[in-house]
């Protein structure tokens, strides 16, 4: 049998032919350098977290096509962008992630001149500690973390005690599945600050959480509202908007921010570093902060909007919903999660691992 062998010899002509193909490929690269942006925008958002028609309205108004990808939680957003922006323009990081991502040069500074609708935003939101002067982010929605519970099963959920230090509902409790909220809430219950880095206080919180594990059925990764609605648990630590959604379907479910205070958070709109369409991104952000568009978004997702002009034209049911706007005296006791730095986060992660190991 004759053996046919490949002969990978190289001569000048073959080299030229090969490199021709290579350069044909390369010419496609510098499209980002072209002055006119293509009519596209990539939006990276939570699920069910934008107005029903907002994206279509934006396309109709500007001709820019929006592609929306979804992430499940802020950590997923952070992890995905940490490895290099895969092509997202507008993203929705929570306040502490804004701080962390800004420190890691993962965000582009906003050009306020291109967003005249900033005038619609409640001035109380315009100079937060996590992003002074709103250099990188604008407030999209805000809310709280509290207890969602069944009125028929739980008489009083006005204190975190009912979750952390009370055997009455053992086995019928769910909690959020991340270290920040569990440790933060335990700290609040013990009378300390949500962002404490004091080792004594953190150790007390750790002991409390390990003892509380006996009563907690599940650390639910943001699906506590489903467990509550399905009757798997009677009370759960959850985000207010998630509980508001199941409250709409089940009159027995309600929401409260316990009296010790809790976490108040703000989801923001920002532009990721390396965004292919920064001009379109600014146009989109301006569109979102329009009065009517802001109203439509808030009506769909039932979270509290910092868009003052939009809030003023919402109906009374929204304005007076206690799950959306908790009483101001309790809100005063709630704290933002601060970005504590990588070392302090490591300490908290080790505590969380210890709780899981116990």
């Amino acid at each position: 049998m004759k053996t046919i062998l490949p002969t990978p010899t190289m001569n000048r002509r073959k080299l030229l032919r090969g490199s021709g193909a290579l350069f044909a490929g390369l010419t496609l690269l510098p499209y980002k350098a072209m002055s006119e942006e293509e009519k596209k925008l990539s939006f990276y958002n939570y699920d069910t977290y934008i107005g029903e028609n907002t994206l279509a309205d934006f396309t109709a108004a500007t001709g820019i096509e929006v592609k929306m990808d979804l992430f499940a939680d802020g950590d997923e957003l952070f992890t995905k962008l940490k490895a290099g922006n895969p092509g997202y323009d507008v993203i929705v990081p929570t306040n502490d992630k804004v701080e962390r991502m800004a420190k890691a040069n993962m965000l582009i500074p906003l050009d306020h001149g291109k967003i005249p609708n900033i005038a619609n935003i409640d001035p109380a939101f315009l100079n937060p500690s996590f992003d002074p002067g709103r250099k990188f982010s604008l407030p999209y929605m805000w809310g709280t973390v509290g207890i969602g519970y069944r009125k028929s099963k739980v008489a009083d959920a006005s204190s975190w005690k009912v979750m952390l230090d009370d055997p009455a509902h053992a086995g019928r409790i769910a909690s959020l599945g991340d270290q920040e909220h569990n440790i933060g809430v335990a700290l609040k219950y013990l009378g300390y600050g949500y962002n404490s880095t004091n080792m004594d206080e953190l150790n007390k919180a750790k002991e409390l959480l390990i003892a509380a594990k006996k009563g907690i059925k599940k650390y639910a990764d943001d699906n506590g509202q489903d467990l509550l609605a399905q009757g798997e648990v009677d009370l759960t630590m959850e985000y207010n908007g998630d509980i508001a959604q199941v409250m709409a379907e089940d009159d027995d479910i309600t929401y409260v921010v316990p009296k010790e205070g809790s976490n108040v958070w703000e989801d923001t709109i920002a532009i990721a570093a390396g965004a292919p369409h920064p001009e379109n991104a600014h146009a989109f952000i301006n569109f979102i902060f329009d009065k009517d568009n802001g109203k439509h978004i808030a009506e769909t997702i039932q979270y509290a909007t910092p868009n003052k002009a939009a809030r003023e034209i919402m109906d009374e049911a929204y304005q007076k919903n206690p799950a959306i706007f908790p009483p101001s005296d309790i809100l005063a006791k709630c704290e933002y999660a601060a970005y504590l730095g990588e070392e302090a986060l490591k300490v908290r992660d080790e505590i969380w691992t210890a709780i899981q190991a116990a």
Partner: protein
Amino acid sequence: MEDWKRNGRAFWTLGSPATFWLVVFFLAPLAYLLVLSFSSKAVIDGQVSVNDYAYLTGIDNYVRTLNPDIISIFLRTLWWSALATIACLLVGYPIAFAICFMPERWRPLALLLIVLPFWINLLIRTYALKTVLGARGLVGGSLNAILEPFGMQADIIGTTPAVIFGLVYVFLPFMILPLYSTIERLDKSYLEASLDLGASQFQTFYKVTLPLTMPGIVTGLILVFIPCLGMFLISDELGGTTSWMIGNVIQSQFGSSNDWPFGSALSFVLMLLTIIVLFIQWYVQNHSKGVGAQ
């Protein structure tokens, strides 16, 4: 095909796509993780950086794997994996035996039924299991209907047995298939000889069948035990508050904890465990007289 030693170019032509694949998508990332496991987060202007690393700074991450909490999760992982593996053997052996002694025309169907679950994604199967075992599910709901008159309530989801059951449910085919392949090749005349010579059924099983099928048993044990060690999805979905296996710790290091160096170190410790297990398999199979399962 000719000897690759004489015809090196033919070998490289055929071998290079696979080699390229292996180097670019397997060895290079693995080497990066190995370097990362000896690295730490860079300190820039007195602050620990979010995503810059100082490479090859020392063995701190491996020292951290000796933390008592991590060790206790490692031990839990080994224990649960061992329980699931033994349960798979106890359930799988009779099934493999039954398939081997079925009429020939039923065997392909039986094997197909064993393999069928692989056509469905693991995540979806786990969710399905969750629905069935849930408080209002087919099994969980029926159990609760029986218990309710006695004033009791059973929660299956969120317990350790649920996790073990989930592991058995998912990995059972990995046990049955190698067992089937050895039992099928077992020379049945040995069993007849043993019985003819006066051994009881039990003695025949214990002294003839079991040693002869040992290679299949060992292969099955390995094929179940190793993927159990790295599992995180089932413990996450079916477990309660004490459900983390080492896979969950690793997942959280690469996710929410943003501590890739420590996650890498944990991964390599897990890999070391796997290599030890494989070494035991190699040793046992070299010293066994049974029917090969390869």
